[in-house]
């Protein structure tokens, strides 16, 4: 069972009643697996992480145990309710799950969300493997209710996506009752001041509990070296130092158990703290007046491994490896065969001299760089529609006549892009905002969003219409262009139009993801075929850079090299002046 699966299982066993999240690697599978228990747990993909936390908060106020999950950067979006809900505390237990991504495997930064716990005044647990994921999420619900605190379960990619053996339990129902109490739950200044006192007292009580909790434990092998670690770093450290060190393995990492740390360190000849990211534990240990080492040897960047720890602390030489004189060509992820985004980026290339583009987070982020050089900046969810407002002003002041294009997807539009669109329209910004609507949250593996007709739990729900949302801003219909991105003539015409005035334009680039089950089914065996006789070898078609299409160096002809992945979208066909490419099949 993966860490994510184990969190879902543990929450179900703990009697959770409501769970909400916005998808984000490596946290996505928590809610996906939670929905397997939909008979017992109401599960929802929220439009963004703030909403997910607020849905969970409502359930907690209502007396149910609730969970909200997000990737690390999602916690930034959710920080607003979290900081104030920390003051209110809970009615039903409430657990926030943050999945951090040291090493940026699939993220825009490697922020260490442990720092949120002291900042927002949360209790925090850090599991190391899947069994602990299950056990700790259950413990977190107990502690949340016992100490009236919001609890943060902090995971990392290697905890979320590693699989290990798990002993499962059964579900214990946890019915609750809504008890209105504005003094506790309505955070106006007079109440908030009092609740701030309460949350500090509750944290102090949790700190006392942490001193003797079985979630914090020691493993003693002499006094030469003491190692302090939490989460997956403990596993790496245990492997790296073996029985040459004693260990303090911390499960509760906020508040930290000062006495336990002091007792462990007393008499140790050397103390080493092993942690990825920020020197969170190291600084806490040093604040107790205990000399220790950590970040002097390891960096804030990347993941740790047993080997990196050994290398950092000079244990054993570098491992011997086998060297080859050949190099493997880079294989970064790329837009799939048949991807609608390829059509948009391919058309936009024709206008690079007349526009500047701003990207966002999603599959279409893969359009940055070669071969399409699709956009210049990419920061966070929704910013693809707001950065253009400021950038357009900057270009205007510099007398630069290029128009700024903002690019984001349907799910990102619902996440927060719509807010930015409203500002752009309201400010009469000289921008063209493009929604690459592929009818699904694709990057994280096809999660439903507000635009889909089916919910996470498999129920029919009203699909929210993006076009109508855009028109609701008052933008005239003639400046809202709906285009199939694979249709190059239409996409070129739309971009031309948007470039023709200094007004705000919106392009709705609409075509569903080629990998959607229903799209695959409807497509049947539709594919493109190349007539080798007619092909002149001009390579115009290969400029679309489709993974299913290659140029055969031997025959000097274009070739559908991977017919199984060709979707017959026909983008390559539109480039052929000799009629050598045609569509074939198409019967489901």
């Amino acid at each position: 069972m993966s860490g994510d699966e184990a969190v879902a299982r543990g929450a179900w066993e703990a009697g959770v009643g409501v769970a909400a999240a916005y998808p984000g690697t490596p946290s996505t599978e928590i809610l996906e697996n939670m929905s397997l228990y939909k008979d017992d747990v109401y599960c929802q993909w929220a439009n963004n992480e703030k909403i997910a936390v607020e849905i969970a908060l409502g359930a907690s106020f209502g007396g149910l145990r609730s969970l909200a999950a997000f990737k690390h950067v999602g916690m930034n979006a959710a920080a607003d309710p979290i900081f104030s809900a920390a003051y209110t505390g809970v009615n039903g237990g409430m657990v926030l799950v943050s999945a951090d991504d040291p090493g940026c495997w699939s993220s825009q930064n490697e922020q260490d969300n442990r720092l949120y716990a002291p900042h927002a005044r949360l209790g925090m647990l850090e599991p190391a493997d899947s069994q602990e994921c299950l056990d700790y999420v259950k413990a977190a619900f107990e502690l949340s209710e016992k100490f009236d605190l919001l609890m943060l379960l902090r995971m990392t990619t290697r905890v979320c996506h590693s699989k290990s053996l798990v002993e499962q339990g059964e579900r214990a129902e946890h019915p609750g009752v809504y008890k209105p109490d504005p003094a506790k739950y309505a955070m106006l200044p007079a109440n908030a001041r009092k609740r701030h006192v309460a949350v500090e007292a509750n944290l102090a009580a949790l700190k006392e509990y942490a001193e003797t909790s079985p979630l914090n434990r020691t493993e003693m092998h002499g006094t030469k070296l003491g190692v302090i670690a939490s989460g997956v770093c403990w596993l790496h450290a245990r492997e790296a130092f073996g029985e040459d060190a004693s260990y303090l393995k911390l499960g509760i990492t906020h508040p930290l158990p000062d006495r336990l740390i002091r007792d462990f360190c007393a008499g140790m000849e050397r103390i080493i703290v092993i942690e990825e990211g920020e020197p969170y534990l190291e600084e806490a240990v040093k604040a107790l007046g205990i000399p220790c080492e950590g970040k002097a040897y390891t960096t804030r960047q990347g993941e740790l491994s047993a080997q990196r720890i050994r290398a950092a602390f000079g244990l054993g030489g570098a491992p011997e490896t086998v060297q080859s004189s050949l190099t493997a060509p880079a294989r970064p992820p790329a837009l799939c065969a048949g991807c609608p985004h390829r059509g948009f980026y391919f058309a936009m290339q024709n206008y690079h001299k007349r526009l500047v583009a701003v990207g966002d987070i999603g599959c279409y982020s893969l359009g940055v760089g070669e071969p399409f050089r699709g956009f210049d900046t990419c920061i966070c969810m929704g910013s693809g529609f707001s950065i253009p407002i400021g950038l357009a002003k900057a270009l205007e002041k510099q007398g630069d006549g290029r128009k700024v294009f903002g690019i984001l997807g349907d799910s990102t539009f619902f996440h927060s892009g719509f807010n930015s669109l409203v500002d752009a329209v309201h400010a009469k910004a000289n921008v063209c905002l493009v929604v690459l609507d592929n009818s699904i949250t694709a990057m994280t593996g096809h999660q439903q969003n507000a635009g889909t007709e089916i919910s996470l739990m498999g129920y029919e729900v009203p699909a929210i219409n993006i076009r109508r949302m855009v028109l609701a801003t008052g933008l005239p219909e003639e400046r809202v262009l709906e285009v199939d991105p694979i249709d190059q003539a239409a996409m070129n015409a739309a971009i031309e139009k948007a470039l023709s005035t200094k007004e705000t334009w919106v392009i709705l680039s609409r075509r569903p993801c080629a990998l959607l089950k229903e799209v695959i089914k409807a497509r049947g065996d539709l594919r493109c075929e190349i007539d080798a006789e007619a092909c002149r070898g001009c390579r115009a078609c290969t400029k679309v850079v489709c993974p299913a299409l290659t140029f055969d160096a031997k025959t000097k002809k274009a070739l559908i090299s991977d017919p199984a992945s060709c979707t017959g979208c026909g983008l390559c066909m539109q480039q052929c002046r000799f009629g050598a490419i045609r569509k074939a099949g198409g019967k489901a």
Partner: protein
Amino acid sequence: MITSILLTGVGGQGTILTTKILSAGLAQMGYDVKMSEIHGMSQRGGTVNTQLRYGDRVYAPNIGEGEADLIVAFEKTEALRALPYLKKGGSILMDRKEIMPMSVLTGAAEYPHGADKELEKLAGAKVVAAGEIAESLGSPKSQNICLLGALVKALPLPSFDWEGLIAAMVPPKTVEMNLAAFRRGREA
């Protein structure tokens, strides 16, 4: 004793399912098993690595450079890319299947077609034509299970009902195909 296996391929080749089946088998044999995967971009043609470690008691889930006892590569150039992870004296099991990365399609890089010969020479790589076998069976997607057949043969494991496990873990419609591919992989 811990055995570390790195499985590598290209998104869509089924490396993750293969690792799942292998882990389930090892767990049923009573080993402590940890498996780690990086799959945020797995459907988009990028490199996909899964790492599996088994033994009496396994702590860390991932494998560092020079630490893999065995590399299983589903694609030729991915075997080459994973080479730094191989322990000196470790072994390689690889398919000679070639999947062109984008950098080769755009002409920015050249595909090292001789990588299988190079790895045979450098590290005694065992090359299995699993992709071709799977295609000859009429089911190109069973390449991964064919490799699994060669893989379980290469590991010093007690006898185990792998076929029963595979039948339980692959999509029902593909059981026959996959079992045929598994048997051919074992013979390879």
